[in-house]
């Protein structure tokens, strides 16, 4: 029986190898040589520490370091790990190297995947985030923050800052900005105060950004955008895709070939990610 079975097994092997070649080329879908659009040189690098509570039921706070690259007219907000990972991908020269990178069990992965470009295009911000299996992109007006100025002042690392508040995304935000640093920018989408926001948090302290350092940029640091095959969409549609992914995680994990235990773990993890920065998405 084994003999006769051999033929059958060979066919199975063939299908397996074929499937393998497909899956490799499927992962090559994440391209490493996307064209890059250079927007302008960065003039200042601001690093924020972001503390966030993913699960509204647990007070566990996760931390992540975020970069704000400030240029003359525009800015880019990206997580440090996302930036590092991107730097590696840009150094990759050929497909073999890229496949090795993708197959590397220890390859970096990032928790915060979004990148925000402000005043690009003019008067708007561009929000980009990878929601498996695509990269989504939407634009939003810059002047959406109705800041209330307070007379409270404080000092953050030797800088005089003043308080301002606003409502955004279903949360009330308290910001401390520094008029001495004349960039009317800040972390995440926040902008429109007459000076750089050095600290901002919501009143429940689920999300807080605090400046760690302000530095001169390293050599050749550009504000630039990897021109992927973006799915251009609206903010509402973006959140629809994101919510669907979170809710539908079991069947997506199934499709990706994850084991039943891994599917359950993914569902458990996703159930804990119930506290996004923007609760209201109007």
């Amino acid at each position: 029986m084994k003999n006769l079975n051999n033929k059958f097994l060979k066919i199975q092997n063939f299908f397996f190898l074929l499937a393998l070649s497909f899956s490799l080329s499927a992962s090559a879908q994440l391209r490493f040589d996307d064209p890059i659009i250079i927007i302008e040189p960065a003039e200042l690098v601001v690093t924020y520490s972001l503390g966030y509570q993913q699960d509204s039921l647990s007070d566990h706070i996760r931390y992540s370091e975020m970069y704000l690259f400030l240029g003359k007219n525009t800015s880019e907000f990206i997580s440090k790990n996302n930036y590092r990972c991107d730097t590696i991908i840009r150094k990759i020269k050929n497909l073999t190297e890229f496949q090795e990178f993708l197959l590397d069990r220890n390859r970096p992965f990032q928790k915060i995947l979004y990148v925000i470009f402000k005043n690009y295009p003019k008067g708007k911000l561009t929000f980009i985030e990878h929601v498996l299996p695509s990269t989504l992109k939407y634009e939003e007006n810059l002047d959406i923050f109705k800041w209330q100025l307070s007379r409270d002042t404080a000092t953050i690392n030797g800088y005089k800052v003043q308080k301002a508040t606003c409502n955004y995304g279903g949360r009330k935000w308290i910001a401390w900005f520094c008029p001495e640093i004349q960039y009317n920018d800040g972390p995440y989408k926040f902008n429109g105060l007459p000076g750089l926001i050095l600290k901002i948090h919501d009143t429940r302290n689920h999300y807080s950004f605090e400046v760690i350092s302000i530095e001169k940029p390293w050599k050749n640091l550009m504000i630039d955008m990897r021109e992927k095959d973006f799915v251009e969409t609206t903010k509402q549609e973006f959140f629809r895709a994101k919510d669907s992914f979170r809710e539908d995680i079991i069947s997506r994990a199934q499709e990706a070939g994850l084991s039943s235990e891994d599917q359950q773990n993914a569902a458990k993890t996703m159930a804990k990610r119930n506290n996004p920065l923007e609760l209201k998405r109007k």
Partner: protein
Amino acid sequence: MKYQRLFCIQRIKILVTFIIIFMFWQNLCGQVTLQGNVTNAKGEALSNINILVSLPGKKVLVAFAVSDIKGYFKTNVNYVSDSLDIKVSSIQYHNECRRISNTSQTLQFVLKHDVKQLKIFTVKASPIKQKHDTISYLVSTFTRKNDRSIEDVLRRMPGIEVEPNGQILYQGLPLKKFYVEGLDLMDGSYTVISKNLPNKSVSTVEILENHQPIRILENRVASYQASLNLKLKRSITATGTAKLGSGLSPFLWDANLTPMIFTKNFQVVTSYQANNTGNDVSQQLKNFTINDLINSIERPKENLEILNIQSVNPPQINKERYLDNNIHFFNFNGLQRLNKDIQIRTNIYYINDYQKQKAALKSTYYTPTDTISFTENLNNRIFDNYLIGKFSLNRNVKKNYLNNNLIIKSHRDKQKGNIFNEYEDIYQSLKTPLKSISNDLSSIKTIGKHLVEFKSYISYDNNNHSLEINPGQYQDILNNNQAYDKVLQKIDLNRFYTNNSVSFVFNWKKLNFTPKIGFAYRKQILESNIYIKEEEKASAEFSNKLNSSFTKAYLKTGIEYRYKKIKLNANLPLSWKYIDLSDEISDNKQSIKKLFLDPILSMSYKINSFCDLRGYWRFSNHLGDIDRVNYGYILKNYRYLNKNAAPISETSRNNFSIYFKYRNPINSLFYSFSYIYAISNSNLMYSSNIQSDGRTIIEAFHKSNKNYINNFNGQISKYFSAAKTTLRFKANFSQQQGKSLINEELFNTKNLFYNLIPGLNVRITNWLNSEYNLNASYIQTFVENSKKSNISLIRHKFKIFAFPTNNQLISCTSEFYNHKGKSNIFVDLLYRYSIKKQKIDLEISWKNIFNNETYITYQANSFTIWESSYILRPSQVFLSAKFSF
């Protein structure tokens, strides 16, 4: 606009009462509107300019504005004061200050260009020592009362995170290496250490940022990840973990003990695992990397299956459902540092397993004129008993990297089987001892600016197998038609194999070459004899003494080309193969020399951001496996007598495939289709001579024949957010066509497989998920275009799982199918409870609740259908606890 109109009204002094009142009220409250424009000297509007308003001489802002794209700004001031300070500030322009009266007014600012220096600051680092790329944390300062393992403390160190599965992240990235005193004992599976090593035995935790563990790659290949090193307090630390479980029925046990010892230059993790619950712990020895898979295709097959006892392919269900085992697994991992650059690692595995297998197998063979069908009841016992030693030497210096693995294996495996068919009871006894030694060397060096990788693999093995069958089989051929007591088939196979290669990476302009040059050689001697009585050989026709060799030289190159949305990839492996065979007994000889070019071409085209189209073509040539040639007969199995005296088979194969996919994450609609077409052309055919009791004589003939495969695969899924439900449908259709030669009849065969799987997932609440699948499959076999068999099987699967609290998990899996009027239902239940503080996991499971006995599966090839019913493990309840010591 509204205000401007108000100003107008003011100027023409139309004294309407409510306006006066309004103005008066505005003055009382101090509500003043400041608006205006900012431009540069050329009169161009300037946006994003800050307009800061403060009370005279004060720094605190009372109002502000930021100019828009048109350079326009507007703000309201609400303070009682005679005058206001207004400051215009920005990065690129000169700051301007004015003192203005506290009245509504329009202001005009013309700004001059300016370059400013900003003072740079960095927040002082936390009280953690940092020296070059190394950060040290003192464990004692982060320890709390309830901490047990180092993982509990790591969790609290800034920058370090521990995932639920134990993976450790630094700055959000997984660790590159996990060292204890600079030694990497576990190679990735470090959770065994981090979860068990007591925090009290560690003095400091070091984070090595941007760590490149292969030193020759330092300054060449940038590393973005950090590694972690634990420094121990004492010179010797011992610890471990245990899992114990027990259940019914019959009496079940599961034990896992993992003690560990760490010193500065020598570290050991050992484990002893034993169970009879159907958990095949020997799977831990299997390697799964892609490289291992590619290598294993080239190397001589490790599990030589020339001789076998009749068995059934296991069903495609969870192994724990049917595996009746009794396994003892001992595992030793030791790591010794010889000096700063050289390490020796020793892994020793010992496995002793006794498996019982009960099944019924119904085989049906179809020919145009005949249908042969027979049933066998099998009762097999498998005794696995083997020892594997792996010794690795690793030298890691700036100028080169060297890793050498020496593997020694010794197997003393046995299998015994009883067969009850319609005619007789047959006893089979198979011994498959193996001795093997292999060495795998890889080294990276630099030649000029380029990195060059050398690889060398050498192996030798000896297989001295025997198969004894009572009563003696094939009496007509082997014993002049006289019944006899037993037949013994012996084989002795000695094999030598080596494969050596050099590879490097070239970049030339926009094209990329990655050539690899190599050489492989294999030499083997096969001796085989059939004995009908003690020391009495059957005639020379049933003996082999075959010398064979296989030589291959190869050059692999790949080229890649990309234009906008189209990507082309070409691989052009060139190989020269030489096979030489000679049999001393029959005095048969043959040799073949050929040069092959096996091109692979693939193309992908991105239609838009949702759709993708891919195509693939491959033409390949295969020379037959030298293992499959034997000029004399070999009794492979109690009912297979095989001879292959034909020339080495030559097969050429054309594969085409096309793949389309659509993925839209916004409306959660995903679908894909693929189509595969393959033709293979072989110069060899196997003829089966099947007797009514299933005994078969297989011989190979020189006859060219073609085989065609068509495969269509489609799937679609859509998530409905309102119903929290995913609907899914998968379909697979495949057809295989060829020629078969049975009992001297040559005929066309065709097989059709259909598989339809509709299903849905429903997320009932955040913590409760359910899944339902229907799996319908059909197998049809055609001989000379007449349908010989039609099998259909429909299975229903239902799964539900819940995690009501963080430390509880409940899952229920059930499967239902109806076959020939008999219905089968399987239900498994599992409940897990974790006691966090004590770090104990308790688990209770009840498997096969309805005590189902058999599971039926089907397999088919061109002219055969196998229906096998496998005896499953009985209903069992199992309770287990996992803890550390």
